[in-house]
């Protein structure tokens, strides 16, 4: 089975050639490749051998796995996902215990230097990394070991990409993202809480077609999906431009579908494809269902102010600092006043009194 090509595998699972080509064309367009590249994608995908994929789950909630495996009822994306040789995935594999670890080691040996590592979850470093261990090894040890023979690493979700929830203040486990540990391998970040499934499959398709990673932005995200902000592609944008805002979740503005900026929408500072690819088979996305964007695909989204606080408001209250500053200003001012008064009085005292008699001497 390992020697079958992707097309053979997909065929065996009942995917028609037409369906396969449609998928390749859609993937090529999503990756912003020229239309002529659809054929190249199809050719490469048809002849590609199943890549070995090792999925490592660290400090995470399995939401990313849920998103990627369950979002669509059988589609090409999910089939493609089933088709890759997912040799190790703690949630999805049948094996357990030492058998599971043995499977991982065998997969690593067979494809040393060529396998993909998919990571979801952050890695705790505090106290020697004791806060998350699998099979007696800390996540840090496992990641270092598995990453050594990897061709590339894909950080799935915000935790693996930027630390996510475990990284949020006060970060009790000393969590860090993958990129802070592995620095000598190509890393692609697919952030989101969870990330959009189609982004994942497109990244895999790109890798299978070209053997390289797609173009990335400054934060390691594929530009094709994270190049624009939610706000730029939001269908409620015209209301923002006209200054029409919902003030609460059940007022006239909310019913009219006005902009959710005042209700804390983080769309302007969030880069993701939600507004275009949408969720649940293209049904909707948070803003369309009446809730502001949380900014889940950005670094530190958990600490970037409350979800319902407007983007232009302070993250931490300034009242304390203001009161302290006023008190300090008044105290210093009073001290300066007294010092000035004393200096003036001293000067007056030191000034010799001159009388007419003195002058006539």
């Amino acid at each position, binding site marked *: 089975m390992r020697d079958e090509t992707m097309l053979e595998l997909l065929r065996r699972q009942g995917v028609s050639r037409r369906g396969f080509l449609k998928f390749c064309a859609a993937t090529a367009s999503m990756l912003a490749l020229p239309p002529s590249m659809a054929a190249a994608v199809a050719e490469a995908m048809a002849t590609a051998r199943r890549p070995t994929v090792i999925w490592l789950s660290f400090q995470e909630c399995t939401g990313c796995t849920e998103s990627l495996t369950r979002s669509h009822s059988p589609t090409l994306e999910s089939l493609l996902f089933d088709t890759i040789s997912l040799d190790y995935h703690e949630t999805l594999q049948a094996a357990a215990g030492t058998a599971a670890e043995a499977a991982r080691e065998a997969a690593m040996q067979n494809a040393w230097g060529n396998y993909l590592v998919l990571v979801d979850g952050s890695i705790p470093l505090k106290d020697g990394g004791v806060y998350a261990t699998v099979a007696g090894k800390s996540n840090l040890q496992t990641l270092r070991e598995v990453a050594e023979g990897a061709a590339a690493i894909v950080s799935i979700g915000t935790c693996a990409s930027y630390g996510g929830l475990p990284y949020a203040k006060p970060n009790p486990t000393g969590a860090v993202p993958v990129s802070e540990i592995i620095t000598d391998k190509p890393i692609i970040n697919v952030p989101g809480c969870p990330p959009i499934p189609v982004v994942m499959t497109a990244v895999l398709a790109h890798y299978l077609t070209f053997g390289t990673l797609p173009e990335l932005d400054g934060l390691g995200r594929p530009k094709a999906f994270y190049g624009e902000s939610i706000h730029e592609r939001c269908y409620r944008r015209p209301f923002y431009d006209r200054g029409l805002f919902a003030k609460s979740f059940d007022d006239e503005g909310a019913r009219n579908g006005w902009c959710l900026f005042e209700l804390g929408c983080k769309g*302007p500072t969030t880069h993701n494809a939600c507004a275009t690819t949408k969720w649940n088979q293209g049904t909707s996305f948070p803003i369309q269902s009446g809730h502001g964007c949380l900014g889940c695909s950005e670094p530190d989204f958990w600490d970037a102010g409350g979800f319902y606080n407007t983007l232009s408001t302070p*993250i931490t209250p300034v009242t304390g600092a203001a009161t302290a*500053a006023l008190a300090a200003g008044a105290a210093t001012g009073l001290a*300066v006043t007294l010092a000035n008064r004393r200096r003036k009085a001293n000067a007056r005292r030191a000034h010799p009194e001159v009388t007419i008699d003195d002058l006539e001497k």
Partner: protein
Amino acid sequence: MNAMELLSWSRGPGLGIATAVFLFGMLLRLFEIYSLGRKPDLAPARPNSPGSGWRTIISRSVPEAPVFRRSAVTLTSGYLFHIGFFIVLLFTVPHITLFESVIGIGWPALPTPVVDLVAVVAIIAMLVSLLHRLLDPVKRFLSGFGDYVAWSVTFLPLLTGYMAHHHLLPDYTLMLAIHILSVELLLVLFPFTKLTHMLTLFIARWYNGEWFGHKGVAS
């Protein structure tokens, strides 16, 4: 530090520091002015002229025709910029939500296109005032480093705010962070530059008016 971290810093610790420096500095300045003290007034007051100080605050703000003719550019650009600046500051939605979250009072915003136009007018007026300062020999002679600093830190929030609103740089997050940081720079420099006139202007006009009234000069 990435753009999001910069934005979070500017919305958190940065804002706290800037507010504290601004309030501390301004209060210190007021004490400083007050503690200069005044010489005892030995002359008897002229026929009483109540409210002279308050009237002067307004009357000195309206230029008389000959004065206006002599400094038309200075006065026009100055007025347009000041009024525009305060309209943009006080009547855009993100600013009002900021004031509401800090002082608990909100008010209605002006329509976005109106504020947008006002912002452009204010930006142009500021550029004209800088150009005039550079080209007019007298103004250039009178201008020092502090004047150009004051102009720059006032111009930056206007420009960056306009650019952020219109998504004029590739990354909005970075632009918003720069905008907030530019305002924080303005707040920090406020008490230590001529920008202090925002507060002292009215104190000085009131004091002069009151003093002149005391001496029998009409306000």
